[in-house]
């Protein structure tokens, strides 16, 4: 029995404001796990994390433990990480390689597709008519698994839109990003940053499409000349400016786009292509594969980031992805995985690793400010005298094109408005 009927839920999300209960009520969090995380496409991992048969990577979808594994037929499977017998988590390491998975409790053994391969004292069981092909005696597969450029998503429920339909037009930003890899492929490499905060998972999700917070939140990262700390190498195009020469916030010109299903993208604060140093080598390699004009276009990185609702964020400027892992209504973990652009000079990858240390580690110049905001939001939202959080900014100026993609700028909150509409739609489906 759910605490909120569709009518109750609709009362929580208005066009330009969201009720505090969406962020603080444990009943809402439980419903989110069931109706969002168990019913739509959620990012699991990248196929490059499991290059060989038997390679596995353990993670979770919502609060449920799953593992991504490459089976002997070379397909990437996503299985619930739970023994069919007594329920123990079978695979206990985050990643590795195994021919079979064996549960530590009673020793049940599974193949990499989850089917039961054997169990101790098998002869006695077989004599009792034990059926190894019974799906209830397997590590169950998650209902649907699909990939886009190696990014593996899973949906715990059958039916509904396929992954590519779910991502829709937003896929162009992913296509463009991957096309900037000379080999046309990216891979996860260089470990990951992990940070956590005492706040709701949607604070991070909102923040990804929120260009309005930058000036206030990140005030301490900006030098008096209006430039942020130098973020990238090369001789030009490497510095983020917060204010132009006339002291006007540059962020006002940054556009935000929203797509069906709650996805969004923001434009880059680095409008110029980087030049100089190793970037010339990268440009030369890319131009040989894509042609000089296309190479210049790809290296401009017009998009800052692309968010796929509910937990996946492609950090185009950082060459990384960010993944949100809800833990409780007021607790969230986030991971940042660098991506290697295959075929690009190794120095580019090393530079991106250093860059993401500065921008997205738990000690970074930027992320620390955002974490502070997320913690303070959760504390502030305990206030019962005031029900609403506002997402009004730029409502009158937002425009939708004939593909159903919405656009705004001047620090619009359009992204927040539509991610909550997508949230509402999923939450209301009985």
């Amino acid at each position: 029995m759910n605490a909120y009927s569709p009518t109750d839920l609709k009362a929580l999300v208005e066009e330009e404001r969201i009720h505090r209960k969406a962020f603080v009520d444990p009943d809402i969090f439980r419903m989110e796990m069931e109706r969002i995380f168990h019913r739509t496409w959620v990012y699991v991992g990248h196929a490059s994390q499991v290059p060989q048969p038997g390679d596995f990577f353990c993670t979770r979808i919502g609060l449920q433990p799953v593992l991504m594994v490459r089976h002997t037929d070379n397909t990437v499977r996503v299985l619930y990480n739970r023994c069919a017998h007594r329920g123990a988590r079978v695979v206990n390491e985050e990643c590795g390689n195994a021919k079979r998975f064996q549960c530590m409790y009673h020793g049940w053994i599974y193949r990499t597709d989850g089917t039961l391969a054997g169990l101790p004292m098998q002869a006695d069981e077989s004599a009792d008519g034990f059926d190894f092909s019974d799906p209830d005696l397997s590590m169950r597969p998650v209902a649907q698994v699909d990939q886009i450029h190696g990014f593996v998503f899973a949906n715990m429920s059958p039916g509904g839109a396929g992954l590519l339909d779910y991502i829709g037009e937003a896929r162009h930003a992913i296509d463009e990003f991957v096309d900037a890899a000379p080999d046309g492929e990216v891979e996860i490499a260089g470990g990951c940053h992990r940070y956590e905060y005492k706040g709701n998972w949607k604070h991070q999700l909102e923040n990804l499409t929120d260009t309005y917070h930058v000036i206030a939140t990140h005030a301490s990262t900006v030098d008096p000349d209006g430039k942020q700390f130098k973020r990238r190498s090369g001789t030009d195009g490497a510095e983020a400016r917060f204010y132009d020469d006339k002291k006007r916030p540059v962020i006002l010109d940054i556009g935000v786009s929203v797509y069906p299903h709650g996805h969004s993208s923001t434009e880059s604060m680095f409008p110029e292509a980087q030049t100089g140093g190793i970037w010339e080598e990268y440009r030369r390699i890319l131009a040989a594969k894509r042609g000089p004009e296309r190479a210049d276009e790809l290296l401009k990185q017009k998009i800052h980031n692309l968010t796929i609702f509910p937990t996946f964020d492609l950090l185009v400027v950082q060459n990384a992805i960010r993944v949100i892992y809800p833990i409780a209504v007021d607790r969230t973990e986030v991971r940042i995985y660098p991506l290697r652009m295959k075929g690009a000079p190794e120095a580019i990858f090393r530079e991106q690793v250093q860059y993401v240390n500065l921008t997205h580690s738990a000690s970074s110049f930027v992320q620390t400010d955002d974490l502070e905001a997320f913690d303070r939001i959760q504390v502030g939202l305990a206030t019962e005298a005031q029900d609403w959080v506002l997402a009004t900014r730029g409502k009158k100026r937002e425009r939708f094109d004939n593909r159903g993609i919405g656009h705004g700028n001047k620090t619009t909150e359009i992204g927040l408005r539509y991610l909550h509409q997508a949230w509402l739609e999923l939450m209301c489906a009985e």
Partner: protein
Amino acid sequence: MSDRETLERIVFLEGELLDEKRFEEWLDLYTEDAIYWVPATPGQKSPENHVSLFYDDKQTMLARVTRLRHPEIHAQLPASRTCRIITNVAVEAAAGSAASLDVTSSHMIVEYRPGWEQRIFAGRCRHTLRHEGGRWRIARKRFDLINCDAAFAALTVPL
């Protein structure tokens, strides 16, 4: 004072300067080509091809200190208070140079920021000290936290 005591004192002094938020003096302990490194995975082999919690050159350390002095550094309003215990200090000769020595030590740092939960950081440190301009300075610090691969709340002050 023996050489060993002199070297130990650099490590203790660094801890003292950090605990007392004397960040400019802390910076001055480091050589101009210094590296301050806190790996993000146990036994991390390289800071180049794997992310780190901190991997700062002197310029980045300076940017960090400048930011710590900024009036709008929200993640330090209010500021962290730290107290650390440094023990099990050992002096090793660094490979290939008489003017350079490694000092290893165990650290336990307790951090409290009003309104947030108290945290403990523990791990083993390796300082590479170099005799330069008539004094010993830190040319490299590597701090391996036992939980370096955990998810952290903000690490706004250097460890």
